[in-house]
């Protein structure tokens, strides 16, 4: 067992785990945040997606030893404290989730996409979400919500810059 310091959702956590422990299980079992989900264990489905310095990664296949103490990790619980991120709001407005199990990962992948690409095309969306499976088939409603979120983020930026 080894000690690791990680910064999750702006808060420092010290954990004592085996060096090969996937970040997923550190977040869920050690830190106790369960919004990040286990789906396949092989980085194939995206249910475990979190943001590492703004980029989506598959936490089920990211060993804790690869995380540096200064890395900024964001899980669904840290995207906003009041369920007010534009992507979350768009998801509620379009009533995207069905079972909901994959949605933490989907939402984080979308938040990262809109951060780097405020005006994504359908092709951009396909590429950005290729790693996130939704077995309930909420894909079309997600696409609608992504465009809506992009629009609302742009109008927010406009309001801010006025």
């Amino acid at each position, binding site marked *: *067992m080894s000690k690791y310091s990680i910064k999750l959702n702006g808060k420092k956590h010290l954990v004592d*785990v*085996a060096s*090969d*422990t*996937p970040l997923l*299980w550190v977040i*869920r*079992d*050690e830190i106790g*945040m*369960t*919004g*990040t*989900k*286990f*789906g*396949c*264990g*092989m980085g*194939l*489905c995206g*249910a475990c997606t979190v943001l590492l310095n703004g980029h989506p990664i598959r936490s089920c296949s990211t060993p804790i030893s690869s995380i540096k103490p200064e890395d900024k990790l964001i*899980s*669904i*619980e840290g*995207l*906003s404290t009041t*369920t007010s991120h534009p992507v*979350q709001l768009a*998801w*509620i407005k379009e*009533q*995207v*989730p*069905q*079972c*909901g*199990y*994959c*949605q*933490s990962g989907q*939402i984080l992948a979308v938040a990262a996409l809109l951060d780097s690409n405020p005006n994504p095309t359908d092709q951009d*969306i*396909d*590429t950005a*979400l*290729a790693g*996130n*499976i*939704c*077995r*309930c*088939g*909420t*894909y*079309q*409603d*997600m*696409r609608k919500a992504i465009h809506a979120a992009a629009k609302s983020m742009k109008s927010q930026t406009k309001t801010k810059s006025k």
Partner: protein
Amino acid sequence: MSANTTKQTSRRDFIKISAQTAAFLAIGFENLANGKGVKVRNLAHEPHIGVEINPYVLINESGKVTLFNARPDMGQGTSQSIPMLIAEELEVRLDQVEIVTSDGSAKFGSQLSGGSSSVSTRYLPMRTVGAAVKEMLVQAAANHWHVPVSACYAKEGRVYQKNKTISLGYGELVASAAKLPVPSSPVLKNPADFTQIGKSLPRPEIPSKVNGTAKFGMDVVIPGMLYASIAHAPSIHAKVKSYHGEKAIASPGVKFVLKTERKMPHASTEAVAVLADSYWAALKGKRLLDIEWESTEADAMNTEKYFNQLKEAGKSPGFEYKESLTGDVNKAFAGANQLIEASYQTPFLAHAPMEPENATVYVQDGKVEVWAPVQGPDSLVTELATYLGFKKEHVKINVTFLGGAFGRKAYYDYVLEAAHLSKQINAPVKVIWTREDDTQQGPFRPGMLSVMKGALDAQGKVQAFEHRLNGASILNQVFQVPLDNAPDPWAEEGINLPDSPYTFPNRRNSFSLVKTKIPILWWRSVYASTNLFGQESFIDELAHHAKKDPLAFRLELLAGSPRFVEVLKKLAELSNYQQLKAQGKAVGIAIARSFSSICAHAIVVEKQGNGVLIKKVYSVIDCGVAINPRNIKAQVQSNITMGLTAAIKNEITVVNGQTQQSNFHDYAVLRQGEIPEMEVFVMPSSEAPGGVGEPGLPPVAPALCNAVFLATGKRVRTLPFDISNV
């Protein structure tokens, strides 16, 4: 659940509770299953809460309303749709109430989410419950004010006097209302006055699913619990010949290595479990196990061999379904102008819900408590009580949200595994299956073969139609019904007369049972998902042989079934069918009724290379009264996605007892970039509500393959197929 509801409450207890703390009014009724002759009872007037009483509404003196939902939510929306039926009549908004999933207690009656039956069977019973409580609250207010009931009305949790500003909250009225007799036949609202049913209201649980707070079985943490990862046999029925757990037990965090069992309805298999203080430690420990497996005779399972047996079985007529038997097909075939024959094969499929099977179970002192994603807590109570030899009242199920299920989580092998382990170590155990377990161990949708035969006369009219079903029976394997001299009554769904009312002068459906040890189970839309591929593809083949347009051909055969006709006409309008056809576009259509709802799709494809590209899917569903139209559209989209995945992506194959696929790399499902645009129309209707969670799936594969035929001239008769190379 409120502590008040879990204890046996006598009349005397009730008064005490009312006087001292929270008054509560619990309403129940009998005859849940058929929704007829519903009798409402007020628990306050019962000497004891009996097993046949079903309390769904609690109101405490502060006005807090709790509604019990006895249909677990796996994504289909029952945590809204079922309590909404009560709330509509009770005159409360869903955002004013707390919704609690039932715990498997007998007082709730059947609690299975399955067969798309939740709304259709609850529609009248749940409304009746809500209406009865509302009438009692209104009566209590009228008594208080000394005015007639007709001078009062209820709205959003309060009773008002007409034309006056005074009102009383439900919490203020509940203690006196509870002393009133329960109305035996409360008046239900006129649907024109509905404020919730029929509106696309937001689902109350959605915010919790976008901020990570929704609790799935996977998220359950019980103090003192150990995590278990189980080494299941590489071939499904193998036995543990010997094992060495020394390396595993020496691994950090590992507490126990135990030989264990997986109990299925038709077989019990052996496995080795590693229990540890974290899931990762358990998983790592499992990888260190040294197990020698011994194949059993049951492992001589091979899907290729199975399908050969199906082909052989399809040569004989099978047991006929008497209810749908019409005329004499053999006579008609003998004198046919044109005889057409074709066989359609559908594969074994895994359900692959995003949340792998998991269960947290604590067995102690002859009692057991479960926290798990399960589709039917009541049937799990029965199964666990039998398995452990406990009384049913000593089994409590806490149902979490289900991260998908599609039928899989009505099979409780994973819960029994956790119970078996907890009993051995006297501590709570959380079993988490890996994706590989989920993909490889089954149960699966059974592979099926439809052997079709049709006769056309010189005018292209269908003279005879035969559909021979061949395959394994869920009723036989899971429910142990012999079927030695009768067809499987469940297996005819989607092609029986009410579901497929094509007017054929001679018609015969039959079933030939081919047994297998491969674990099987219902998979979203069950046999309708397999039967309709043959049925609706073959109707298309007959239309082409008759040189008729497939839509016109169906309309003619369905002329006596107005709801089918309306759905097809709407589909033609929605998809601009005639214009697309005139432009030479390939538009495949299929229609199916399953689970009491009719759904039709028009799928537009374009030739691309050696295959086709799906351009758009148009859908029309008639599910009777639409409870939440937006949610219905979402369910149809969900079914289209799952139906397309089943048609073009995946299959489970088994060789010598070993499943050949293991995870999403070789059991692929459709992803964001692979989804065609979908447009869904929900027919306005005042007919009794039908199912929504499944009926959109059966017509997907035939509509697609009918379109593929138009685009390429090639008829797809075996699923899955490679859409890029037809």
